[in-house]
């Protein structure tokens, strides 16, 4: 097991190196000029040239690449070309809101979706099943910004229960944090509930048709034990995969939700950096997101052993 984990962690190195080369080249091949963003519309070509020179953007590509990799190896993510602030600090500031919203969303989604999926499978083709399926289709189909705006209209502007926008860190109190974080998390939850509930229902249906479930029922096991002990545990592996990749997607940044609720998360940081061609920020964000994906996938793989003892590494 330990050897497996070590091998997986070592495998991250070539993956990250490939991502680094790819991202660097892709950005340099995309048209765009950070100097133009800094200097503004009135700048003359000569002025832009001076700024490019000062920022090192005129250096040959390989020099720029090795300078960046050298910085990375020293643990330095560089400095934003636009705001001249350290990239690591910018990401640290923006990671908190993204992580907090992602965790809250996953918690709420799992708490709602797993029982919904189990009930839908258990009461297959009943009213409850159709209700869960209808909700799932809606959750998938309605764009997230529409759900966000409807929640704002209802819960913020009409009922006044939650603020319209903004983010308060948990360090300033749980209630203050939840007041800001609940609506965006609820908005995202509608999608993830749909996804996880469908997956749970499908896998539960498959498992509930297995011989050992019939045996469990025949020997008189209570229904809740059959559902949660025998069936759900065996259906857990694909559900866990969906939850894990869903979490990875969330921590990669949810731009639309962050925009609608004005949350200073890493999704908007990445989009703003792309629009401004702020190369060090984009490069750092893509590297970080790739690393988090690899890490989350590793954790998912390891968690399989907890639910399915047949899996061994």
């Amino acid at each position, binding site marked *: 097991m330990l050897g497996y984990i070590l091998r997986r962690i070592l495998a991250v190195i070539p993956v990250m190196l490939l991502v680094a080369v790819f991202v660097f080249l892709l950005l340099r091949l995309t048209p*765009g000029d950070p100097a133009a963003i800094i200097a*503004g519309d009135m700048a003359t070509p000569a002025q832009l040239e001076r700024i490019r020179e*000062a920022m090192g953007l005129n250096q040959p590509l390989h020099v720029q690449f090795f300078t960046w990799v050298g910085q990375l190896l020293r643990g330095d993510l560089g400095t*934003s070309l*636009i*705001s*001249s602030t350290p990239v690591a600090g910018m990401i640290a500031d923006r990671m908190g809101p993204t992580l907090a919203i992602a965790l809250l969303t996953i918690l709420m989604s799992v708490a709602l979706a797993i029982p919904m999926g189990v009930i839908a499978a258990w009461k297959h083709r009943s009213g409850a099943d159709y209700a869960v399926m209808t909700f799932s289709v809606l959750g998938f189909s309605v764009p997230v910004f529409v759900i966000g705006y409807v929640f704002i209209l209802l819960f913020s502007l009409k009922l*006044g229960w939650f603020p319209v926008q903004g983010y308060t860190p948990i360090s300033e109190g749980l209630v203050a944090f939840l007041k800001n974080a609940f609506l965006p998390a609820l908005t995202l939850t509608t999608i993830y509930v749909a996804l996880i509930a469908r997956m749970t229902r499908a896998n539960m249906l498959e498992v509930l048709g297995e011989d050992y479930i019939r045996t469990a029922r025949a020997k008189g096991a209570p229904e809740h034990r059959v559902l949660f002990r025998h069936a759900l545990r065996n259906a857990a592996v694909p559900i866990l995969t969906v939850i894990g990749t869903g979490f990875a997607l969330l921590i990669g940044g949810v731009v639309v939700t962050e925009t609608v609720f004005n949350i200073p998360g890493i999704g908007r940081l990445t989009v703003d950096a792309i629009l401004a061609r702020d190369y060090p920020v984009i490069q750092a964000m893509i590297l970080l997101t790739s690393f988090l994906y690899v890490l989350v996938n590793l954790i998912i793989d390891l968690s399989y052993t907890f639910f399915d003892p047949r899996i061994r590494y």
Partner: protein
Amino acid sequence: MLKKLTATLLASSILAGSAWAETTVTAVMHSGLRVLDPVMTTAHITRDHAYMIYDVLIAQDSEFQPQPQMADWEISEDQKTYVFTLRDGLKFHDGEPVTAADAVASLKRWAENDAGGQVIMDRTESLEATDDKTITWVLSEPFVPMLDVLSKQSALPPFIMPARVAETPADEPITDYTGSGPFRFVEEEFQPGVSVTYEKNPDYVPRDEPADWMAGGKVVNVDKVKWVNMADIQTAVNALMSGEIDYIEQMQVDLLPLLEGDPNVVVEVREPTGMQTMTRLNFLHPPFDDPKIRQAALAAISQEPVLAAMIGNPEYYQICGAVLGCGTPLGSETDADTLTGGGGMEKAKALLEEAGYDGTPVVLMAPTDLVALATQPVVVSQMLRDAGFTVDMQPMDWQTLVTRRAGQAAPADGGWNMFITNWMVPEISNPISNPMLNGRGNDAWFGWPTDEKIEQLKAEYIAAEDLDAQKQVSDKIQAHAIENVLLVPLGQYSLPQARRSTITDMINSPVPVFWNLKKTE
């Protein structure tokens, strides 16, 4: 004992009262603040930031006239020596007094990047601090617009920084944000592109005159101002309605009905001149290297449909054929009849035929990610097609556009023929600072016209002795700019601002400022 107790109670109630009375104005500006150096960029948000924390020697009032701000001035009889004297009580945020040496260093750094500053420096014999409070600026020849350039409110006003900061090379960003303005920058709360906080500068001594645009007393009546960036204007509108924010600098006109019925919100145009939208042609490549074809394009374009598509509500736009902007001292609409009144299509077709236009496609770059620039290319390209042009409208993001427009390659090789952008009217209201009126070929602004006549006319403008003479030259500049199609003005517009009714006494200057205003609970 009783006296002591009463005094203690009184003191504590005053303290509690002052803590209770702390007021913060939360504003959503037109974009997020990212660049903090007002000499490196002409971005409006950086200029707005600079007006919060820095002060200027002289400033423009609502008549576009220079007025004393940090300093007053005397001009020698031969109009070659300007002596500026700093007023008493000026202090930087670190407590150090503002000296003439600080001003001289700041002016020199500013002049490296500002077009107007470069024109002055070309005529400068010496610029020095003759004592702690006196700046003496000696020119080699009279330069009548000197004070207009030094007092301009946009795009690069000369802000005064400590000499140690102003010694930073002009193409490297400053890292010390000490100013002497009415607000202090709270560096530890700054998140680039997200939010920025300013505190009232308790040491700031405002002038006695009432505030008038950027001139007069900058009296701060609130404790803090916080700018929060919201990428979605709908979110900002919701936040304004719920009272979470106090102010939106630029409203989208189509969202105004949401606010119109709200008694707690006031929607108003801050100042009438607003912005100019205009198109620029590339003089280097066919078809617009031919003056007749440029004139055909100008004749085909009519402002009304462009503005109607862009803004919609005529209350917020103005037909204006003036290259230097309408509502400005020098603005003239000479020879812009087809632009302002339409009806030039037949003339356009005739000009195209006369020029022997061979159907060479016009590559029109159309940015799709900026609301303020997304509609004009669509309308303009249709008008050009109606006149007989072949138009290749290429959608792209603004960043791609600014990169492409800097290249001089032929349109078929990744170059361009035409793009559209917007300016704040005070920025283009003066022939010296208006980038489109630069006729120095490769050194000119994108589009690179080589136009000796416009350079001669600008020299005439510089030599003009008074406003009447300047107006006469400006009229000639207008006629020539239209004839040679140095730009095609597409009209003016003003995006209204929205504020909570608890915010009062805002100054209606083109640059949004936060002194003078009051916030009531």
